[in-house]
């Protein structure tokens, strides 16, 4: 069953991984160009001072730039979409194509069916996340800003755990709905909803996406225990709900 799931998910994972590599590599490589452009101006009209200050802050150090661009912004956005794409079809496409009867008529528990599917997708997602991080590490070293491997790895695991929340949501919706579109859109909308507290003053602690990235962990100044535990719990809850629901679902 694992092989079947790998074959089914392979193109999504390959494309997702390739995009992650390209995005991370581009982000890592354009730092010097951005910094030079901002410093020399190249004859272009300078942006307002406030914007300049923000850009200066972002480009103040390569570490802060790399972390904020890959682990805090583009990485989660890209990988959340990949997680939703991987999870949305896990059960719903079996139902819509009619293969659910072939699958569930085999002497396998529904827990095994669901968790095998989930684990293959989770590992594909880890592969894509890791590829992006490795691309970042390699390109950063090439452009003269070697990064701490330990910090990158911990941030990679944290980001992956955060993405498992999206994957779990997509899986849960995939059990509920019989088409792929609603689980895909639903999981992304719920994820966005969980980031809303980030825009509310004094509610940052309730912003789940805040825990997906830790600069202190990236720098190697602190181990992100709290973020890891929160991300782990957030990843487990939707999967547990999906298992409970799938056990009782009639087809």
């Amino acid at each position, binding site marked *: *069953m*694992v*092989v*079947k799931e790998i*074959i*089914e998910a392979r193109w999504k994972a390959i494309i997702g991984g390739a995009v992650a590599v390209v995005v991370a590599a581009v982000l890592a490589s354009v730092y010097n160009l951005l910094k030079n452009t901002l410093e020399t101006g190249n004859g272009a009209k300078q942006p307002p001072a406030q914007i300049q200050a923000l850009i200066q802050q972002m480009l103040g150090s390569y570490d802060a730039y790399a972390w904020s661009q890959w682990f805090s912004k583009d990485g989660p956005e890209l990988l959340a979409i990949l997680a939703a794409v991987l999870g949305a079809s896990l059960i719903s496409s079996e139902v819509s*194509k*009619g*293969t659910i*009867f*072939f699958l*569930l*008529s*085999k*002497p*396998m*528990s529904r827990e095994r069916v669901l968790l095998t599917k989930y684990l293959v997708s989770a590992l594909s997602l880890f592969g894509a996340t890791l590829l992006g991080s490795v691309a970042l590490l390699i390109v950063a070293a090439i452009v003269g800003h070697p990064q701490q491997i330990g910090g990158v790895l911990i941030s990679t695991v944290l980001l992956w755990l955060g993405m498992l929340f999206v994957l779990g949501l997509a899986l849960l919706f995939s059990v509920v709905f019989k088409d792929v579109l609603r689980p895909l859109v639903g999981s992304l909308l719920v994820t966005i909803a969980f980031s809303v507290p980030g825009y509310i003053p004094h509610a940052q602690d309730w912003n789940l996406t805040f825990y997906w990235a830790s600069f202190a962990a990236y720098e190697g100044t602190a181990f992100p225990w709290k973020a890891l535990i929160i991300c782990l719990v957030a990843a487990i809850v939707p999967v547990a709900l999906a298992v409970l629901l799938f056990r*009782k679902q*009639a*087809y």
Partner: protein
Amino acid sequence: MSDMSAAQESVGNSRQPAAIELRNLVVKYGERPAVNGLNLTVPTGTIFGFLGPNGAGKTTTIKTMLGLRQPQAGNVRVLGYDAVAESMEVRARVGYVSEVNSLYDFLTIPQLSAFCRSASRQWNQGIVDRYVGVFGLPTKIKVGRFSKGMQSQLALSLALGSNPDLLILDEPTAGLDPLARHEFLNKLVAEIAAEGKTVFFSSHILSEVEAVADWVAIIRDGALVVCDELDHLKQTQKTLKLTYANLPPAAEVQALRDLPGVMSVAQEGRSVRLLTHGDVEALSQTIQARPYALRGVEIVDLDLEDLFLEYMKGGDNGR
């Protein structure tokens, strides 16, 4: 329906455990019962045709046997196992070809076989290879490029690979052309049954059921209408066509309906058709002795299609 009861009772009392036993099965979709108090016993080693019009509850019954749906009431035992509490044991011993017949179209036959092997307890790749060879199915191209008939043949081959004691086929020949249907049933099902396995298949193509089945059950509105050995059913159930000299009064038609052995009555002018069971000769003599002149009495043998139509026309009298 004493014949039905007697046949089912004799199966129920036999020492060999029944392949399938349904008792007062109720399965609902929301509030609507799809299966409504179904009782059925399928003897081991038979080719059992499960008939009914569209929406009669055939597929729902099959899904319940496999644990894909939970019954609201009643008991389901398959090969001696409780289909609800021991669903895994049931599925380990049952080969199933679904109505939809959907296989993973992105896999090749060896990949599908590997998938089934990983999910099976007693996989026999030799059986699959043999049937794949018999059907001449290509092993290097993806199943999605197979014709409907090839997919049915592959689904059956894979179902047999788990070496099942019971094969459940839900409308296995739907969408096949007559030649493919003939090959599928006459060649295969007979061969499988010859190995002592029980074959339970639902169909609405009555000629194919009649060609291979030795037992049949007909359901309507989720309840059993009749269940018997096909030969016994055809021997004991016949149509008696009566042609009266004058239009028979309603009281006479009602009296015919109440005669023992009369299952249903249909009147068209001076002609009255009785679906009967038991000793039709004796019934014929009883009717001829009644005080209404008859121009003709004809005993008509029924094939399965006639029987099916009679039961479907018979309303509650047919039960």
